[in-house]
């Protein structure tokens, strides 16, 4: 096989994979419009007071969540980056956990800590103050901050870590004051990451499903995403679902365009961070203040995990584990998540390898560039078209052709797979691109093609990020509620679905136990997969 044929095969496979993902996404949206009748008039929709209220609340909660997450992340990351405490890396690892934790488990944990009978409320009651009401905007904000403040903090710390080591040395040598360090070094670094981080968080909060489903209360606290789901699941009003979906897609498209303009890539920054050595010596008061900020921030993020552990252990775990429904749900979850992660990984890597094959050594052509951009867009389109909307489309389409329940598992796996693609592409892509720049010419001059090239050049470069990506995709699917919420039933139920049912029927102890099981399996899944891959690397090395 010549390198030219090899290149063609790679590009062909990548385009096929991208078309598959694209077809699934577009199919879902197209199904919405064909099955549900004509696309409604957007202007008319925006005059509907009900829809306006929902749109208003969607923007309000997303805006406030973003502002709070960013405002709290800034002092925390600055303090963490400046302070000399040991265990910085540990804190950064803890801050990675909310992104892996099933959202439903996080929402339950927020209720446990901040709810009416939660730790904070009991403390307030003891002081003679009113208890907190976690349902509605307050709870949504707390939960969104719990999930997104750590994300913002990691992006900020990563931004500070990108500051050249010489800048910190200069700051030390020139005896710059804390204010001067902020003005000259920290603020310029923040200014580069904050717009992208804010846009990313805003987008995540606009399309946030689980948190609003659990903590949102009634029509006063409903978002577009939830309204789509309710229109299908409860009212069965496809017309309204379609109208809401159209508004949602328009909104996310706008935000994504803004995000891409504001930051280089709103989803970047997966490092563990806090690596820089600094030489500015803070005064004792300042060091103490930094320590306090770090402790408070860490407690805020760690407390829900502790809550899950404590209340979960109090539940009757032995009975839960032997329960048939729980066992079946756990096995279903495992099967769905592994299938979704594998599918997602295969499709993403085929697309990524095509992108690299299209990256020329010499001059670029317009056609190649356009194809590359098209491929990249296909992997990220799910950010605009949310899983609930795709699910809604396929739900309406399949209902006409076949038994929805029979097709449900495949649709859920497919939705979970496309959901993970933007993450996989961003975790694995840079490593593959680096391998291409470092070894691409050498591989071509040696005539390495096909499996040999894969084994000697591409796979070694991807192995570690691949492990992280697979673990991330599996965890994302394992904890997902968005797809299963529409397609779930007593015959096809995953752990998050079962957990939602138990929460709905006020079986609090059961819910706590299930949350612990769900959280523990997710964390274990990530740890094993990551270790398995990195371990095998050490054996072969």
């Amino acid at each position, binding site marked *: 096989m010549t390198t030219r044929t090899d290149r063609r095969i790679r590009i062909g496979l990548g385009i096929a994979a991208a078309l598959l993902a694209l077809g699934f996404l577009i199919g879902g949206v197209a199904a919405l419009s064909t099955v549900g009748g004509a696309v409604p008039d957007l202007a008319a929709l925006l005059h509907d007071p009900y829809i306006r209220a929902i749109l208003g609340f969607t923007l309000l909660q997303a805006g406030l969540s973003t502002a709070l997450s960013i405002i709290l992340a800034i002092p925390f990351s600055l303090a963490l980056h400046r302070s000399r405490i040991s265990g910085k890396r540990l804190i950064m690892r803890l801050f990675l956990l909310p992104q892996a934790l099933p959202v439903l488990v996080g929402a339950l944990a927020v209720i446990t800590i901040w709810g009416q009978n939660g730790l904070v409320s009991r403390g307030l009651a003891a002081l003679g103050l009113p208890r907190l009401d976690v349902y509605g905007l307050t709870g949504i904000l707390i939960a969104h901050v719990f999930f997104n403040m750590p994300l913002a903090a990691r992006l900020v710390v990563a931004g500070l870590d990108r500051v*050249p080591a*010489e800048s910190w*040395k200069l700051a030390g040598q020139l*005896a710059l004051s804390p204010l*001067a360090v902020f003005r000259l070094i920290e603020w310029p670094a923040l200014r580069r990451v904050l717009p992208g981080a804010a846009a990313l968080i805003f987008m995540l909060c606009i399309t946030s499903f689980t948190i609003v489903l659990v903590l949102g209360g009634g029509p006063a606290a409903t978002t577009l995403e939830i309204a789509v789901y309710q229109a299908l699941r409860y009212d069965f009003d496809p017309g309204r679902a379609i109208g809401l979906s159209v508004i949602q897609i328009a909104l996310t498209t706008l935000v994504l365009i803004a995000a891409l303009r504001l930051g280089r890539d709103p989803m970047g920054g997966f490092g563990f961070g806090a690596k820089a050595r600094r030489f500015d010596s803070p005064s004792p008061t300042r060091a103490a203040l930094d320590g306090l900020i770090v402790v408070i921030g860490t407690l805020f993020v760690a407390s829900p995990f502790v809550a899950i552990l404590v209340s979960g252990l109090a539940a009757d775990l032995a009975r839960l584990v032997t329960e048939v429904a729980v066992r079946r749900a756990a096995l279903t979850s495992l099967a769905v998540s592994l299938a979704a992660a594998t599918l997602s990984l295969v499709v993403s890597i085929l697309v990524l390898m095509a992108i690299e094959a299209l990256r020329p050594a010499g001059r670029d052509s317009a056609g190649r560039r356009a194809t590359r951009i098209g491929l990249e867009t296909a992997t990220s389109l799910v950010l605009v078209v949310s899983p609930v909307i795709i699910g809604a489309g396929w739900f309406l389409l399949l209902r006409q052709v076949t038994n929805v329940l029979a097709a449900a598992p495949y649709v859920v796996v497919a939705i979970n797979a496309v959901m993970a693609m933007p993450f996989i592409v961003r975790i694995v892509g840079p490593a593959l691109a680096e391998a291409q720049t470092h070894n691409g010419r050498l591989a071509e001059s040696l005539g390495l093609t096909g499996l040999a090239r894969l084994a000697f050049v591409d796979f070694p470069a991807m192995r570690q990020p691949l492990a992280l990506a697979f673990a991330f995709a599996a965890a994302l699917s394992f904890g997902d509620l968005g797809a299963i919420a529409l397609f779930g039933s007593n015959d096809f139920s995953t752990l998050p679905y079962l957990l939602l049912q138990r929460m709905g029927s006020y079986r609090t102890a059961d819910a706590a136990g299930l949350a612990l099981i769900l959280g523990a399996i997710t964390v274990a899944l990530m740890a094993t997969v990551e270790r398995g891959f990195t371990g095998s690397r050490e054996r072969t090395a």
Partner: protein
Amino acid sequence: MTQTNAAFAPDALVVDGVEFAHGGTAMHFDLTVKAGEWLALIGPSGAGKSTLLDLAAGFLAPERGRILIAGIDVTALSPAERPLSMVFQDNNLFAHLDAFRNVALGITPRLRVSREQRRAVEAALAAVGLEGYAARLPRQMSGGERQRVALARAFLRERPLILLDEPFAALGPALRSDMLDLLAALRQRNGAQPATVVMVTHHPEDATANADRVAYLEAGSIAAIGPTTAMLSGAADPRISHYLGMRTKNV
């Protein structure tokens, strides 16, 4: 600085039995640099040249031993408290500040500069041949110009000891030789003793014209030190001639 007779001036830098473990290599340094001297540090990568400078500047803390600058023990002092200036290979300038601000940072971190300070900064820029460059941002300057700005700041600070970590490594041969001449001129402080220079270099020929002595580092310690011509002739130590590639050349 007190005006002292050169003969009685304390040594500019003394590294006394300093030990430091770096990535599995145990390093041990003993070094005395006289006031007004120009010392070049050469040796293979990983030998500890930059580590030695970082220890002297206070960016790394020794596990054992003392560091004295101008006769004062600075081992426990922070980088800011040590009377020296350091110039790195790159990233010497803050990318979003113009040349004037970057130099002015050497004397004040404040936004406002006094008329006196302004004049001093402008003189420093002129001294490195960059009149009219005050408003340029680092990205609007060439690599050589950026290093000139860094030198302007280092000398504006009027510290008796200048540490340079491969400052001209990224520049071409002609430009490098220009920069060395500039450095030689800058360190002459009218009447007073010239500033002491310790410079890491990968180009032994950088040392020939200006350095008084050359220290050859290998595997985390100073393997040989002596007058420049003797050291670079290859006669001093077979390890140096091997490093310089003389054996293959002479055969």
